[in-house]
């Protein structure tokens, strides 16, 4: 989450044809961040467990999935998914071209960008259970998985765009 704006925000989904490596995801998000106009970002994909969840090896560490960091602006988040889909809310329509250019520069394979309504606007029952009857900042809605932890999975970015 970066800025508040008076213009009408737009929401877009970036859907790459392949799953992104952590380095590619970081590079892409960095480019998008520098292009400006960001209100919200959400990354989604299949879970990368830190330990074997089932079977005879249950509990053994999966070293490949540990210490994956996603650095963006002045923040670093622990990457817990294989990035397969990115939802963005932008301040206005004019920033979409910048995002598209960032994708073209960063992704070595095809991708789709679709404009649609992605984040929910009213608190759900899960949100009520998570945040109570009053949500302090409504931009938080739809950003964190119902079972996710806000402190762990959410970062507030500054507006400096890494300049």
């Amino acid at each position, binding site marked *: 989450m970066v800025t508040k704006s008076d213009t009408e925000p737009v929401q877009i989904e970036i859907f790459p044809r*392949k799953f992104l*490596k952590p380095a590619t995801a970081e590079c892409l998000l960095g480019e998008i961040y520098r292009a400006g106009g960001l209100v919200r970002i959400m990354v989604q994909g299949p879970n990368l467990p830190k330990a074997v969840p089932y079977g005879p090896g249950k509990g053994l560490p999966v070293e490949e999935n540990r210490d994956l960091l996603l650095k963006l602006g002045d923040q670093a988040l622990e990457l817990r998914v294989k990035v397969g889909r990115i939802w963005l809310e932008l301040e206005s329509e004019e920033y979409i071209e910048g995002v598209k250019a960032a994708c073209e520069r960063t992704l070595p394979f095809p991708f789709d960008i679709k404009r649609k309504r992605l984040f929910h606007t009213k608190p759900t029952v899960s949100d009520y259970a998570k945040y109570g009857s009053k949500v302090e900042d409504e931009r938080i809605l739809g950003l964190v998985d119902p079972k996710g932890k806000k402190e762990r999975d959410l970062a507030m970015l500054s507006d400096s765009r890494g300049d």
Partner: protein
Amino acid sequence: MAYKPQYYPGNTSIGANRRKHMSGDLEKLRDISDADIVAIMGHRAPGADYPSTHPPLAEMGEPDCPVRQLVTPTPGAAAGDRIRYSQFTDSMYNAPAIPYWRSYWGAINCRGCDPGTLSGRQIIEARERDIEEYTKVQMDSEMTDPALATMRGCTVHGHSLRLDEDGMMFDMLARTELGSDGNVYYAKDQVGIPLDKKINAGKPMSEAETAKRTTIFRCDNISFGGPCTAESRSFDEGLVALHHMWERRSKWGFRPE
């Protein structure tokens, strides 16, 4: 005239590949050693004795039974081995085999096995030394592309997901990896326990190769009804046969009383 089995209809390359899988007439593409197969399966240490659940049949004194006299036991059954399994996940992105065809292959070609077909994985159970032999055939032959088919005993998620950037099927336990030499290596056994050394499973097939060898009908490769062009407007026999089966089973199941 000698009977020639007709395994699967159709003139598409998919139909031909399905017939190949079912008949067991498979091309061998690589040679993974027995010890490596045993290590990836993870049921016993390579070179260790086979644990048994009963004495060898020859020592047991079997009852007088005409069926037992007719059927020769498999080596694993004769020795009294445990039942063990191997399970594969095949990507929907043109993996050479799919669960149904691994099962057909097992049921037709492998004696004393119990194939289990699920949407995203396929398991074959058999006596230990038998399943090791059957697994080797699967790993060595064109049934398996190491990038698109992985032996996964648990946490099999990945068959219906997009591929990774390097063309590997997603695996949340990172059992396989693409080496810098272009070969796929197993770093863990089928249940995610790290191996003592990485095992080379061979080079992945190219996209053109997987499209040629796959048994999956896909609209971006060969569709179920076959190529439909201005010259060819009729469906492939594979689809016609399927329609026929559905029609007959629907009519057969119709009982108006």
